[in-house]
């Protein structure tokens, strides 16, 4: 069968991958490909002239866990991350990954692929941002770490230099008293008015020690206000009605381009989260 002239490369090692990425700077780095295939029109994948497949690069499928971090290879399928179990993956991330798709999708989709979609913020990104996760970006002869919250520029492009590849994701492991993740709709279908919410809080003796709240409508700008979070630190639980309504007022004005339903869902989730903070 005649193909459309797409050259596909299958590097076996990270070294080969970085070399190929340098030689073919315009090539599509193909990890799970579920987003690309999901967005196609017609019965063929929309592939550029060169594709570099990560399917054989075992170095990108490793997992390691220390007391402080969980490190996940960028090309490890979501299914394999879920197989680590709830006790090894932060609860909010585990919940978010379960929402990425049914098992037939989770066996293909990867964490790196979920992060590196230009112009669209997919399910794992807000959660990883809230957990202060970072990605390792490598190219031949150089590597750097970048916060997941900075991978997507406000204009939708990715903060990746030419030939740079996401190789692993480092997630700090911290104890939280409550970790909540909720999602409505799907970022893959903007018409479903998607909204993801994640809330983390650490409390002790009825006092908030740390609190983080984020929302995402699938757009590059996250719905997060660090000033409100700092204001809430040190407050007593249950929070006073005035504290909650002050916070909610701020969250009501965050972000642009949200539909009334998205905004309403986000604000209600924030309210619900603040009302349900555990005492310790």
């Amino acid at each position, binding site marked *: *069968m005649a193909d459309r002239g797409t050259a*596909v490369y299958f590097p076996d090692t990270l070294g080969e991958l970085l070399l190929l990425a340098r030689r073919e700077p315009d090539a599509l780095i193909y990890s799970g*490909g*579920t987003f690309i295939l999901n967005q196609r029109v017609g019965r063929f994948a929309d592939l550029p002239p060169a*594709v570099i497949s990560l399917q*054989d690069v075992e170095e990108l499928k490793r997992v390691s866990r220390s007391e402080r971090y969980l490190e996940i290879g960028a090309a490890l399928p979501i299914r394999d991350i879920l197989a680590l179990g709830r006790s090894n993956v932060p609860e909010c991330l585990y919940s978010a990954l379960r929402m990425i798709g049914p*098992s037939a999708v989770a066996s*293909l989709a990867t964490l790196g692929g979920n992060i590196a979609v230009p112009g669209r913020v997919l399910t794992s990104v807000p959660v990883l941002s809230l957990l202060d996760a970072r990605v390792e970006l490598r190219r031949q002869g150089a590597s750097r770490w970048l916060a997941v919250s900075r991978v997507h520029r406000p204009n939708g492009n990715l903060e990746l230099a030419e030939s740079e590849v996401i190789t692993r994701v480092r997630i700090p492991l911290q104890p939280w008293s409550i970790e909540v993740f909720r999602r409505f709709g799907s970022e893959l279908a903007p018409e479903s008015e998607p909204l993801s919410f994640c809330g983390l809080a650490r409390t002790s003796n009825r006092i908030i020690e740390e609190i983080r709240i984020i929302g995402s409508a699938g757009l590059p700008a996250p719905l997060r206000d660090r000033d409100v979070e700092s204001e809430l630190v040190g407050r007593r639980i249950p929070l006073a009605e005035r504290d909650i309504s002050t916070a909610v007022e701020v969250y009501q004005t965050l972000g642009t381009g949200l539909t009334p339903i998205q905004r309403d869902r986000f604000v209600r989730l924030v309210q619900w989260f603040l009302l349900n903070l555990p005492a310790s």
Partner: protein
Amino acid sequence: MNIIFTLNHEPIEIDVDPAELLVDLLRLRLGLRGARPGCLRGQCGSCSVLFNGALAAGCLIPAFRAYGATILTIEGLMDTPDYQDIEKGFIRANARPCRFCAAGKYLSVHALLESHADPTDESLQDTLSGVWCRCTTHQRLARGVRYAADFRRRRVQRGR
């Protein structure tokens, strides 16, 4: 491009367009019509295959990814005792799937029982929610899977 992979336990070499969907390659060019194109967005489960041992949506796999892979379709599963166990379980629970979703349900249950001999409620829910067809109820299907797990366990104990 020319690719070699293992399909239903047999090696196969074929010339493909890298952008072709695996479900189309299987159905239109290799004549394996068990996997059916449904939503074509990876959500309905009717095009499911086992891709390197894991349940995967055939509509989300471009042909080039089959390079070096091991693929099992419903046709390849059909003649195995594993299939018979699932079939017996579904019949006993009065939960035989329709022909449209059969590939998705049999293969997803097979994948589940390969990894969980005694499936948990959560894994069962995850598995069954991956096939959208509602030709039978969730409760019956869940019962069918438990019967199938039981049949498989007893067969393995008997050493067959």
